[in-house]
């Protein structure tokens, strides 16, 4: 069966079983690496992507539910050559060790900052509660998200985009 999916601004027609979780479509069909397999049961958040401005666990969300909706992965936030504010902030704060959980963290944080770029530390911590990190990078991750908020606010003041 074919499913039509909008990912990072591009529309794709995907040939996949409609029950296939979005994660496998992103990784296997579209060859995107940002969303990671961590647990397959929605407990760790490493597969988190943004769907229409909400954080979604792609490992447990069947692709059939996403017909016509806008999916954003970490690849949609910027590139190696031109990192977006969230990516820039994680680089500046050196907020990664192994980095495996980081794209999921960034996508969940992006959801918060799109709604409230001035979100404070307590709000960020509460918002990131579903996502696990095993290297113990948490303190840097929180700092990076706060820095991303600053960069987004600077961009919007100077007329740039908010992503």
């Amino acid at each position: 069966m074919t499913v039509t999916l909008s990912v990072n601004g591009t529309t794709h027609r995907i040939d996949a079983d409609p029950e296939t979780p979005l994660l496998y479509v992103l990784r296997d069909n579209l060859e995107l690496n940002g969303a990671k397999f961590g647990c397959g049961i929605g407990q760790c958040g490493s597969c988190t992507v943004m769907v229409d401005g909400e954080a979604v666990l792609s490992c447990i969300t069947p692709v059939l539910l996403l017909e016509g909706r806008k999916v954003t992965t970490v690849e949609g936030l910027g590139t190696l050559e031109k990192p977006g504010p969230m990516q820039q902030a994680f680089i500046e704060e050196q907020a990664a060790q192994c980095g495996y959980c980081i794209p999921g963290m960034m996508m969940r944080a992006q959801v918060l900052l799109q709604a409230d770029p001035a979100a404070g530390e307590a709000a960020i911590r509460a918002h990131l509660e579903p996502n696990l990190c095993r290297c113990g990078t948490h303190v840097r991750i929180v700092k990076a998200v706060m820095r991303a908020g600053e960069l987004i606010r600077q961009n919007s003041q100077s007329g740039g985009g908010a992503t």
Partner: protein
Amino acid sequence: MTSHDVKNPTRRGVLAAGGSLVVSFSLLSRAFGQEGEVQGTAPPAQPKPKLPGSLSGEPFLDAWIKIDAKGEVSVFTGKAELGQGVKTAIIQVAAEELEVDPGAIRLITADTDRTPDEGYTAGSQSMQNSGTAIRHAAAQMREILIAQAAAQWQVPPDQLRAENGTVVKRDGQTLDYGTLASAANLHVEATPQSRLKPTGSFKVMGQPMRRVDIPAKVTGTPIYVQDIRLPGMVHARVVRPPRPGATLTALDAAAVERLPGVIAVVRNGSFLAVVAEREFQAIRAMLLLESVAQWSEGRKLPKPENFIQSLKTLPSQDGVVSEKGQATGIPAAKTFEATFTRPYQIHGSIGPSCAVALFENGTTTVWSHTQGVYPDRSAISEMLGVPPEQVRVIHVEGSGCYGHNGADDAAADAALIAQAVPGRPVRLQWMREQEHAWEPYGPAMLTEVRASLDEAGRIVSWNYDLWSNTHTTRPGPAGSLVAANSLPTPFQPPAAKLSITPSGNGDRNAVPLYAIPNMRVIWHFLPEMPLRVSALRALGAYVNVFAIESTMDELAVMAGVDPVEFRLRHMEDPRGRAVIEAAAEGFGWSRDPLPEGRGRGFAFARYKNLAAYLAMALEIEVERETGRSRVVRVVAAIDSGEVVNPDGIRNQTEGGIIQAASWTLYEAVTFDESGITSVDWSSYPIMRFGAVPESVEVRIMDRPGEPFLGTGEAAQGPTPAAIGNAIRHATGKRLYDIPFRAERVKAAIGV
């Protein structure tokens, strides 16, 4: 991918010597990562000149650094990036001594076809071994290039200097490294002495350089083994038995073979796997295969009730770790006695283990996040029954590595499956429940301490007994691999052996570094392994430092002395004193009263008693009604020797503290007689953001010119002790059994 460098014929002999316990060659053995962690008997080692770091195993300069005619610099390390930032630190060291821009260095990490054999990337030894080797190799190569320029210009070499990939003469003329490297012979053996740059002239080392791997990681650029996509690649999943020792008794796989996308069901004895075109097809096929496979009973696991206490009743071999003065009969004013325990704990990487393997033209190539490409190649080739030259293992990053996890097993799984589908690359990934149930755990441990003070409040005697399995069952031998244990003629896990080494294993850090006149430390080594175990970050140091530093606080209370002051009174090593003072000062250590439910805790250790020094102070908040504890803030001071990347040291130490806090507050493998029951993140909870400290501050001691001491594991031991000491301070109650989950704290404080 199929090119083969000329092998250094001495390598395998040297690798075997890595496990040597021959005392006169202890330097050589330490160079090959994991002294105290490697098992096996070694052939007699050849005496070699004492070369710095891993140069002792691979002396040729051009095995470490190559400069081509265009001046492009490639650096080769046998160590692997595990998320600890070692690539960046090695680039800094090479750039500094070679006088080239760090951005101009291409770094090639662990690959059996391309890099020196440096054993395992483990034990916080990458900078001591590989960093030291590359630093000396770079300095010696720089001097050769200067000498070459001196010969070409007919001037004395002391009139020349190296700068930004060139050699510069006093009149400003330059010769570039490419030209000089083409003319010079760089295939020379290292000499024991190098002209190292003094700390004062550093441009790159000692500076917080940004990690080279982070931009890729935050943009979804393929960097992990999980991200490998090769032409024609297929996806595989394994089906494990319900518990160890169970064998496959019956299988009708016809329904699985008919599923869409399924290419093969692989059965080899009790090894069972499925291969499909797409990943989710492989998962569906795995689920059906699980439901149709029939298994024998297997081995019963131990009864979980009072399991930890039962460790003392298992058959043991006793090893004397340390003995001095009199063991008994010392007159004592006061004595503290206690038992400390920790359960089995997991590595729990967020991404389950993964590997890609390709069997083609008689050669098996495996991409793996293993810690040791060479030992893994030995194990896989033994399992496949082929010479090691027919297996190539290439390290590619995986999810975070904190010791011997499922990486080697996944590599073996993929290699075995690849034999069934020649010519097609196989990507094998474990499921979450497989990682939780089948990775080798950090061993359960029990320790007993009996320590006494004299009338003056000084420690006069110390008796310490620990019960533990080995903390290493790494490959090398095929029997260390789950897949090899499942073959029709199974490879058996090698028998564990007791060995007492300077850096320790289960007995790592079992000897207090404090000045104590009478001491006896015994490892009751347990050969029998009820659950599969191996190396988890810091090995026995996590439990031993927990026990020692908890005891130090109780003795301080008995002596009526502040715990920091009590430690200083017994610490003679000036670098030990310095980190204790720095952590106390940075934290603002005092005896001032804290609000209800808050407490301060302190702890110290020198990792392995021969590597990095670390002291920490922390504040904890205990919620009386629930028993929930949260670390509020932490200040640590670390001395890792000469600093290469200060931010790298901070990142590793912050992470070590938070991870060890998670182990300490929450973590325990659970099981019953029928199998492992902690198979996901709800049955094995770890720390989440809500419980993360408000701040973790790391102070780095400046030690110019001192040898590298490593960083990665230094915080693991002090953290549980500082937490226990802080809970004691907050509640008046001492906790002896890890984890300090809410119900345990509640029971201890009696609410």
